[in-house]
Each structure stands twice: as structure tokens, then as C-alpha cells.
């Protein structure tokens, strides 16, 4: 099962390496990993998307907690949380198809951030599934290049 794990860590050299080494050494998979500063510049947040049955996810969270550089580890599986992934997609525009492509991007509320002679760069943020859906629709036109940040996540505030 897919799990989103949010990890706060000390913002120090080598911390990312400690975490990625742990995943590699124990054979855990990483679908995506995004890292950046939090409200406190001494602390970074990593959002790791991984897969495994309950026992593996339990081990992953426990092993992450065991690392000296980690401060807090939260499996967002049970929580109500917001998840966003950002994609930049350079899509080919065959003659006469520009309108079709723009329409698709518009439906997804994507932004056109660059326009070339024969291609467009589309920016889209959202959940992974939404981005995947757009990619599937754009693929027939020819995707020349694509880059994604991987998910970042945050729990919702108390209502």
C-alpha cells in the first residue's frame, strides 16, 4: 500500500544521505522524496512516498525514528492531510492541435509557463493522481520532457 511519511530532520549535511542509505540498505522502496526548509530554518521536512504492507511501514517509521538526525516521523496514512506534487511538462504541439491541448490544460487548471514554436511547457500542481491523469491525456501529443517534485504533504488544521 502507498504511504506518505512526513519526517522532520535537523537541517545538517549528511542527513539526507542517512535517510536514503537507510532505505537502500533495508530494501525499502521510495516512490518520491521531497525535502525543504520548514518555518524553522534549522529544521527541514522530508516527505517520503513509499510502499509496503503494514509490517514494512511500521518498520520504516521505527527505523526512521531510530536515526539520530530525525526529530519527528509521522505516517500520514491515518491522518487527514493535503498532498501536492508539482510537474513541469514540455508537450509537443502538432499542427492544428494547439487549441485541444490548451483546453485540456485549462480543465486541469494548469498553467502554460512557456510557449515555443512547436511545444508548450505546462505547470500543474495537485495530487499525484491528478497529475498522472493530465500526463495520460497529454501523452498522445508527445511529451518531450517532464520533471516532477514528488509529493509534499501537511496535515490539515483542527476544524
Amino acid at each position, binding site marked *: 500500500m502507498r504511504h506518505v511519511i512526513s519526517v522532520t530532520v535537523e537541517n545538517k549535511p549528511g542527513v539526507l544521505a*542517512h535517510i536514503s542509505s537507510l532505505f*537502500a*540498505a533495508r530494501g525499502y522502496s521510495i516512490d518520491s522524496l521531497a525535502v525543504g526548509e520548514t518555518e524553522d530554518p534549522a529544521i527541514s521536512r522530508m516527505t517520503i512516498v513509499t510502499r509496503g504492507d503494514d*509490517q514494512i511501514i511500521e518498520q520504516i517509521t521505527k527505523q526512521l*525514528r531510530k536515526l*539520530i538526525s530525525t*526529530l519527528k516521523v509521522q505516517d500520514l496514512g491515518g491522518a487527514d492531510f493535503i498532498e501536492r506534487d508539482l510537474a513541469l511538462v514540455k508537450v509537443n504541439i502538432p499542427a492544428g492541435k494547439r487549441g485541444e491541448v490548451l483546453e485540456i490544460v485549462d480543465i486541469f487548471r494548469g498553467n502554460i509557463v512557456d510557449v515555443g514554436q512547436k511545444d508548450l511547457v505546462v505547470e500543474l500542481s495537485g495530487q499525484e493522481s491528478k497529475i498522472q491523469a493530465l500526463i495520460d491525456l497529454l501523452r498522445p501529443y508527445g511529451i518531450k520532457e517532464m520533471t516532477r517534485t514528488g509529493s509534499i504533504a501537511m496535515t490539515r488544521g483542527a476544524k
Partner: protein
Amino acid sequence: MNRTGADIFVDALVKEGVEHLFGIPGGVILPLFDKLYDAPIQLVLTRHEQGAGHAADGYARVSGKVGVCLVTSGPGATNLVTAIATANFDSVPMVAFTGQVKTPLIGNDAFQEADITGITRTITKHNYLVKDVCDLARTIKEAFHIAGSGRPGPVLVDLPVDVTLAEHDCEYPQEVDIAGYKPNYVGNPRQIKLAAEAINRSERPILYVGGGVILSGASKSILDLATKASIPVTTTLMGLGAFPEDHELSLQMLGMHGTAYANYAIMASDLIIAVGARFDDRITGRLDSFAPDAKVIHIDIDPTSISKNIRVDIPVVGDARGILESLVEMAHEADHKEWLDLIKAWKEKHPLTYERNGLKPQYIIQQIHDATNGEAIIATEVGQNQMWAAQWFTYSRPRHFISSGGLGTMGYGFPAALGAQLARPDAVVFDIAGDGSFQMNIQELATAVKYQLPVNVAILNNGFLGMVRQWQELFYKRRYSGSVLEDANPDFVRVAEAYGAEGIRITKAEEVRPAIDKAIASPKPVVLDFHVDREENVFPMVPGGEAIDKMIGGMA
């Protein structure tokens, strides 16, 4: 007052109470060795960095203190890797200091440069590269704290040469506060209550005790709980000595080469009380048929050990000693007569045994036990020698059996025995070795002679990599591929003598005891070269991947 990094380093070691430091110098670490020249710390110069690491490890296992080693960059550091991995697997408190090229050169493929923090990331409890002398004192303080607390383990501190030469004005910190490291020592009272209730309900309980009990100093609590509630006790290899093996409730070691009655008992139990053990594959055998009727209580300081290999019903995270003390109070007195009678019958029917003809390795171990009243510190190498040492010496106190359990490092025992002897100068120390293992760190004979450490090496010399040969005999149609040593073994007696140690060759059973007595009496290191029965096997044995009550061999 400004001090150099090297001064800060030596001061930190003194403040941490370090008395012995194991290591070898080299280019970038010279500023530290220069300061050690007149420091109140004994530098133990080994002949290989791996030897320094294992010696620090053996010192730590026997003394309970943090073992410390110091080596240079590049090959010095990489030579230490096996020793660090060994200590990590067996939860040994150790701080390894490695030299590093100066900071502006890091990453430039400088002479004798190795990314040792990268290399050791997954085989240390934590590691540091100190890039600024201002961080040095605090880093060393943290390293000792992390190594020795919680579930102990090795911490590596990489020291670039310019950091050790730079100056800084600082005091060694008194306190340590690491935001991401707060080991949990106190068990959850609700979990302890659940565990006590399960113990009081159980009809066929068994205590399964690992090295964590020794680390926690909880041997007495195990004895108290076992005797109050009449619970039989089996230990892992790492747990040997945590419970007296001459006690009637002892089942000795379980697992692949455990006693038949320990394996039968855990398989038939209705409650396993696991303490400081981690359900390693050498213990459980085939997982889906392991102890089918048993509920499992798992007491461990490391939450990652719990429910890793088998599903645990009642986890209790914390320090074994405090948790066991509570359980002793809450446990009801019981006699479990039926259960103990059943175990007694197994003990009578399936004792450990061997055929007494020729010069048998098992007999030698028994004689070492008898000659030292069971008080010797036993270090082992890895393989048949290790298993016979585990089976045939009756361990009755903690910190007297030191062996590479998890990693299974051949070449561990001899340097570890040297560290053990330094920690306990009064004790008789034996390294139970094989002719293969001993040659993996034989150069440390020089260290033994130089520091006048009267360690005795008992080589169970069968001319083979014996455990490999045993597997090949049983599972590979006796095709002894790569396991034959005898065609090029040295004369170990003359090797010992060449180093300035004593050597004795023993070929007959009647020569065993006089040779052991002579070795114990000698003030020198002694190499006992026992020419044992060449194709003797370690039995009983559970073939890999089988259920642990499916033992072969050695069943009377």
C-alpha cells in the same frame, strides 16, 4: 584559552574516562598521536586496524565501558570497517576516531582519502564528520553518549587534519542534549501489567534471553523471575552467561546449534518471554512453523527489534532491568510441574553428546572449563570453534563470553581477547580458535607479546574451514571446494615462538589438560595447537530454513 583540536581531543578522552586506546598512526592523524605521547591514556598499538577495532570491542564487552580506537584516513579507516560492522550487529558501545584529509581537499581524491562516513553510514549507530574545531568537543561528547546509551553501538567521528590543528577556546561540555535522540528506558506500565498477566496465566512459559540482558545488567532479575515463577530459561549466543547454565532451569542455548531440549521447549511453549533478543533467523529457523502455540512478550530497548521478524503480542519497550524488576514483583509463584517434568524428560533423553575417541574439540573446551573452574573469559572466532565453545563451556556469569554473533566475523576472537585481557588483567582469557580464523588476525601476536597480555589461544586445528566443510559434507556431497587449509597451514608452534610467544602442540587427549594448565600458568601469550579429529561435526544442527525442532545429528 585557545587550544588546538588535538588538545581538545585528548582532554575529551580523559574526561570520558578512557584508559586504553587501540590504534595505528598514519599521516593525517599525527597531531593526535603526538598529543597522546604524554597523555595519561595507554595507547595500544595493534598490527592491523581491524585488530584495533576488535580489541576495542572486546574491551567494551568485558568492561561494559565504551571501547575507543583511533586510526588514520583512507586505508586505516577502511580497515576498520569490519570491526565497526561487528560491533554494530552486536550492540557494542564503541567510538571510532578516523583521520581525514584536510577539509579543503575532501572530495578531491586526495592521498589516503576515503569517504568513511559514507562507507559506514549503515553500520554505525551514528557518525560525524567534524568540519569545524568549534564543533569538536560537543561532537565527542555526543559520540560517547550515543555509543553507550540506549541500545549501544559504534559511533564514528571523522577528524580532518586541519580541524585537529586549528585552535579554539572551549570547555568540554558537561551535559549533552540531542533533540532527535531520547532513548526510552522506562517500560509502559500498562504493557508491563499485560505481560505479568500473561505470565501468570501461562502453563508452559519460557524465557528467551539475549545479549540485551547482559548490556542492561539484568541477569539477577532474570534469575529472580525464573525462580519465582519456575520458568525455564534459554539464551541466544549473545546471551550466554546471562543466566547460569548449571541452574536446573537452564536449557542452555537454542537455535541452529542449540540443545534439543531448548528447541523442543520453545516450540512447545505457550508463552515466550523474549528479553533483549531479536528473533534472528539462526534462532527461529523456519518462521511459519516457529512456536505455533506461543504468545510472545518482547522486552527490548530498541523498538525496531519488535515485530521485525515475528509478530509480537505484548511489546514492552525499555530497559530490561527495570521492566524485569516490575515483572518479578507482579509474577505469581508457580511450579509449572508438568511443563518442567516434560523438559526434564527431554533433557534426559537428548543431552548434548559426542563420541569420545581420539582428540575431540568438545573435550578440549570441557577441559578449559574445568581447568579454570568455569571462570575464564572465553573469546571465540567464528565457525565450529564458536559453536563448540558455546555448547561445551558452562557459562555462569555475564561478560565472560565474547563472540561475533550477528556479523559472524572470523578473526574477531584473538584481538577481542587482547582487549578483554586489558579490561580484566586478573582474568584467565582464552580465545577458542580455528586454524582458519586465527590466521585472519594472527599478526596480533605481536600486540600480545608487546603488551605482555597472557592470552591463551586454543586452536582447534582440523586443517579445514570446519563449518564450511561440515555444510559441504552434509549438503554438497563432500565436495570440499575452497575449504581445505591443511596443505598450507603454518607450524603454529613455531609461528608463536617467532613472535616471542609460547607454542604447544597437542595431538592426544591425555596431553590436553597438562597443556592447558601450563598455558594458564605461563606469563606469556600461549598458542595451543590442538590437532583435533578432522571431520568432527557440530551437532545437533538445524539445516538452514528448517523448523528448529527438525534437528539432525548428535541426538542420543
